[in-house]
């Protein structure tokens, strides 16, 4: 055997070679293999969120398109439901145009469709066929509630249009005017109330336009309808003792409860441009001092403490600032828990606590003053806007304030709710009706028919 022939590779010697070759191969291949795999893995890792995002976006898009489709369908449905309204509106517009054209034609031909009436100080424009009715109604309202008014600048500039009909004529007033329109089915009493309310509102605006002290004091219109039974109930049930003293016959207490002496906050009068900060502050301090005086006249210390304790706004402020040592919470504690009267007063001044009887009740006093004053009382009330409420009321009513307050108190007392005072006569009436129906029951012919 030749040496070469005998040079048979022994398996044991081949193993390292194979292992080496395998290692080299592996070392060479691994990066080759690993790189794409890694890249794939990296690519896959990089692509996965993108895919997920894309999927999410796709889902969102689908959802959005679905919801959009739903919204569009919904809007279509809504639009469809609006179609009858649109048609109706168009019809109305068309019929209004036709009426306008007819009115213009009539006007050109000299045929009047509306009439202008004068009742008292009122100017009323109404369709010609309703002029008699309008005259009756306005005359009735004017005579009943406003006949004592001799002069009114606002009323002189105001035009009222009146229509009590389903088929309305277009009436255009250059200055706007008050349009009083009522459907045919509305009851006459409601129409009368509507006219009265419109006139009362006009006088309210006139009072407000004067910027007078009385206008700040009452807010609303003294000519509106007042329920004196409710007024009595309110006065009798306010927490302030001064109100009940008023009902008991103390005219001074009435004035106090109504806040006749209430100071006017400086911001009501407005701030002068030339006023310095110090001057303004001095005015505010002056107001606070007067407010403090009024508070002690309106409420007893116990009542003032109860007002602070029961005031939701103050309680809220106190809760928010609790534990922080801010003045609200400190003063609240001193007032409610420590029973320190000054602390209560300071808090009440801060919230501008009002007199016990509100503006609605004050209106009844102004209404009474106008009634007492008779003819020209309204003009007198507006004559001097700078006058305090007491002076203005005395001047309008032509009687001293005590007499006025006594008369007003008597009026309120005469309207005291009867509660159960009439229980005996009403009970007797009920018994009579029971007897009547019992008689009917006994007269029934059932057995004879039976």
């Amino acid at each position, binding site marked *: 055997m030749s040496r070469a022939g005998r040079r048979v590779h022994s398996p044991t010697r081949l193993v390292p070679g194979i292992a080496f070759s395998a290692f080299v191969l592996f070392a060479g291949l691994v990066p080759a293999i690993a790189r794409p795999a890694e890249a794939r893995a990296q690519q896959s890792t990089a692509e996965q969120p993108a895919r997920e995002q894309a999927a999410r976006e796709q889902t969102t898009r689908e959802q959005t398109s679905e919801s959009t489709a739903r919204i569009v369908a919904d809007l279509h449905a809504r639009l469809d439901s609006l179609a009858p309204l649109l048609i109706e509106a168009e019809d109305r517009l068309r019929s209004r145009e036709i009426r306008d054209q007819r009115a213009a034609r009539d006007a050109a031909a000299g045929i009047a469709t509306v009439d202008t009436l004068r009742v008292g100080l009122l100017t009323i424009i109404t369709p010609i066929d309703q002029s008699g009715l309008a005259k009756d109604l306005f005359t009735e309202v004017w005579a009943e509630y406003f006949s004592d008014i001799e002069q009114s600048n606002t009323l002189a500039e105001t035009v009222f249009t009146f229509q009590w009909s389903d088929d309305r004529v277009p009436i255009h007033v250059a200055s706007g005017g008050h349009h009083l329109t009522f459907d045919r089915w509305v009851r006459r009493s409601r129409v009368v109330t509507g006219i009265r309310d419109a006139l009362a509102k006009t006088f309210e605006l006139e009072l407000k336009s004067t910027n007078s002290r009385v206008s700040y004091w009452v807010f609303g219109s003294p000519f509106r309808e007042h329920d004196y039974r409710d007024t009595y109930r309110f006065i009798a049930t306010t927490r302030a003792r001064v109100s009940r003293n008023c009902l008991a016959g103390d005219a001074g207490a009435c004035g106090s409860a109504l806040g006749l002496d209430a100071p006017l906050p400086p911001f009501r009068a407005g701030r002068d441009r030339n006023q310095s900060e110090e001057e303004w502050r001095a005015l505010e301090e002056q107001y606070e001092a007067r407010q403090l005086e009024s508070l002690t006249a309106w409420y007893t210390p116990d009542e003032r403490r109860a007002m602070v*304790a029961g005031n939701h706004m103050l309680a809220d402020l106190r809760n928010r600032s609790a534990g922080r040592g801010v003045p609200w919470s400190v003063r609240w504690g001193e007032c409610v828990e420590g029973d320190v009267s000054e602390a209560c007063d300071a808090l009440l001044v801060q919230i501008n606590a009002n007199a016990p009887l509100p503006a609605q009740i004050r209106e009844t006093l102004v209404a009474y003053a106008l009634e007492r004053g008779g003819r020209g009382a309204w003009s007198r009330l507006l004559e001097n806007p700078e006058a305090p409420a007491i002076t203005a009321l005395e001047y309008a009513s032509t009687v001293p304030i005590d007499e006025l307050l006594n008369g007003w108190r008597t009026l309120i007392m005469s309207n005291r709710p009867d509660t159960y005072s009439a229980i005996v006569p009403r009970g007797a009436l009920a018994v009579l009706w029971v007897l009547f129906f019992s008689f009917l029951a006994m007269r029934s012919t059932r057995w004879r028919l039976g």
Partner: protein
Amino acid sequence: MYKSMLFLHWKQIRPALALTVVAAFALPLLMVSSLGTPPGMDAMSLEAYRIVGGVDEWLLFFPLLAIAIGVTLALSSWNWDHQLNHVYALSLPVTRWEYTLQKLLAGMTLALIPAAGLWLGAHLAAASIELPEGLHAYPNELAVRFSFAILVSYAVLFSMAAGTTKTTLKTMGVILGFVFFGVMANDFLATYYPYFDRVQIVEGVFEWMMHAPGPFEVFTGNWSLIDV
């Protein structure tokens, strides 16, 4: 005979009457239950006008309960007569008016039971709250009004139930016809006579019935347990 009428009626209406007594007793108590002091507020803040305002919403239930009691009593009083075709009544040696009177009185006696329940409840309710100055409780007056209201509704329904079905239907027909055709006739007349613009006949009649001296004034008056 009155006793047997009373017993018969009592036997029939016992469960319903028990319910009405409970309702009448509880109503004043429920009314004042909302008048407590809000949490965190001083007792002084229990303002009088809030009390009056707070009880207002309950006032409607008093006349409604009275009507319900009156109707229940009236219908139940004739129930067994209608069921037995008046055989029992006809077998008695009394005239019809005497029989009806006894029945009426028996029902009226039973009407006093829920009224007494309300009286007790109202007194309890009034005692359970401290009223501020200026307000008073009227438990006796409320109970008296309640009794009258029950009696009136009882008498009206009793007289209707006492008649034949035909008579009852006729009566109801006349009332409904008056309401329906009265309004139409009013509108029609108003087109020719302006006077009818001012006067609403149906409304006027209802107004008259609901206010003195009308029969139903007792339902529309003041029902306050607490007032000035």
